[in-house]
């Protein structure tokens, strides 16, 4: 009952956040970026043509009127038309979403699968060499720019060793996409019954996913480590040891579950960022996802596309934290009450 109310309140919070973010983006884009008409007309165009195009782009009205129009469209779930692609922003986002999700899911899973065990190991061997090793490597993972890690991996695995393909997107150049069913290439290629294509998709995905995995595993390992260390110093762990439980039970059953709370919060935040599209990563690997779309919309002053993306990203952020709250209740009985 109370639980339901809390979730409902969380979900309703989406609306003020979305409204605030939309307003912020709308005015920022227009005040800062000025009139993008010049980007879309030939330089020799007449004033009449300019005016015509300006009107077509929806930029002829005074800004407050544009704002009200935009909000009105939003209420009807219309995100407007992108200047650059000529498509509706909603369908643009929808088309690019699977690429970002696929990369994000694989990268995040890698990060969790590697980060949590590393963090546990560091905590268990606290102040001994495995701990120092994990702390050193993860410090590097946090301190290195993601785009640089990507470049180095390309330089090693593609340029030098030639065992993985170059950064040309989700499939090698010239290879047609399979019929779109889920949008996830790792699934669609199998549904199409084409394991060779599946393998190509896996190889294309390998480097960006590794890069993402490395940079997500690092903070996850560090937070896991410090939460584990704290849990292992608690009274209830002392009890478990005093009752004769072995180390493995103490670490993995009695400490880890308590230590997961801050880790879940972190993963929620990281997921919010990743699924909003890792802009630089996608740009390096020519990955046709939302991050590239956002970058392009900024470079081309594509207002509707930019606003649409920002709405998506902020909703995702709120949703991620809603999910974190739900997981919290699953993990920690004290919150359930």
């Amino acid at each position, binding site marked *: 009952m109370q639980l339901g109310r809390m979730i409902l309140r969380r979900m309703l919070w989406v609306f003020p956040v979305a409204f605030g973010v939309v307003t912020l983006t709308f005015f920022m884009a227009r005040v800062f970026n000025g009139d993008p008409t010049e980007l879309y007309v030939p330089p020799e165009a007449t004033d009449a043509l300019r005016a015509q195009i300006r009107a077509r782009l929806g930029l002829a009205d005074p800004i407050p009127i544009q704002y009200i129009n935009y909000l009105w469209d939003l209420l009807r779930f219309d995100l407007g038309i992108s200047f650059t692609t000529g498509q509706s922003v909603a369908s643009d986002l929808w088309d690019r979403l699977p690429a970002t999700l696929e990369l994000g899911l694989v990268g995040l899973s890698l990060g969790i699968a590697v980060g949590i065990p590393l963090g546990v190991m560091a905590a268990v061997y606290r102040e001994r060499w495995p701990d120092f090793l994990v702390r050193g490597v993860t410090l*590097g993972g946090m301190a*290195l720019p993601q785009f640089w890690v990507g470049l180095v991996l390309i330089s090693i695995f593609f340029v030098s060793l030639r065992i993985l393909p170059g950064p040309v997107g989700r499939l090698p150049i010239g290879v047609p996409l399979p019929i779109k069913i889920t949008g996830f290439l790792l699934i669609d290629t199998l549904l199409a019954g084409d394991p060779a294509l599946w393998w190509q998709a896996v190889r294309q995905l390998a480097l960006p996913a590794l890069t993402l995995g490395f940079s997500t595993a690092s903070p996850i390992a560090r937070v896991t480590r410090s939460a584990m260390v704290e849990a292992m110093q608690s009274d209830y762990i002392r009890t478990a040891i005093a009752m004769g439980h072995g180390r493995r039970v103490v670490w993995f059953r009695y400490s880890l579950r308590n230590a997961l709370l801050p880790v879940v919060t972190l993963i929620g935040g990281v997921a919010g960022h990743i699924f909003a599209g890792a802009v630089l990563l996608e740009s390096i690997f020519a990955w046709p996802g939302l991050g590239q779309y956002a970058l392009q919309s900024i470079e081309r002053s594509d207002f509707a596309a930019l606003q649409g993306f920002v709405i998506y990203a*902020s909703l995702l952020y709120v949703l991620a934290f809603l999910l974190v709250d739900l997981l919290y209740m699953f993990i920690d009985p004290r919150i359930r009450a």
Partner: protein
Amino acid sequence: MKIAKAPLPLLAAESAAVVPRHVRRKPKSYWALRIGAGILIFYVAVALLSLVWTPYDPLTPGIGDGYDAPSLAFPLGTDRLGADMLSRLMAGARYDLGISLTAVAIALTVGTTIGTFAGYYGGKLDTAILRGVEIFQAFPGLLFAMLVVQAVGPGIVNVILVLSFVGIPDYLRLARVEIHAKRHWQYAEAARMVGNPPWRVAFRHLLPNSIGPVLAFTSINAAFSALVTASLGFLGLGLGPNTPEWGSMIARGQDGVMTGQWWVSFFPGLAIMGLTGGFYLLGDALSDITDPRRRQ
């Protein structure tokens, strides 16, 4: 474990069972603090040195033939245009270090000031500020920086302002939470009773007692700012195209990576790692030291 026979100092780490929270482990030698501070001092020294001396002029192309591999003449090689990488790297310290430090200083000052007011007075204004901050934080930070810099154009001042703006909400929240929790503590009441005006209670009595977590965060935030600076530079949004900023140097070397001239992108990345790593180490050490549970 033959405790009675082993030499004593080894034992603290060996008997790894359980530490009640009030008991310290064998105290740390603060190596993280020392290494972190050491790295940052090194970077400051390089930045200062680059003002008076670099092996070659960092801005002049054509010193080498272009894509010269690392050699005695060019220890880190040259870039596509033949500019010396070591000289550019040294000059880059001025930009990346200067930008992130300045941005963090501004964010720290503005954020904690607003946060202290909000936390001390509470009420509607506080709630309104918090809600605003929450909305702003739902906005992807790097995207915000990209949007603004793209709009107002490249330039050091613009980058600094944007970075500090992105950082302000975190400081605001941190300071607010600390002050809010402490404003009714006895020493605050005592300070009020002897006639201190509210601003004095907040800034002279409460803030200094709350600054520990804020300072630790400052170091982490500086690392983040350095990374965003490099990211903007990489996207070509930050500074002028020939500025020896590490992120834009990596971008300039991107083509070389594909053809085997890895050094142009490689070394600036290491430079960034050293700087952000130094900040992180310092931040970790500071939050260890200022953690109230470990303070005695």
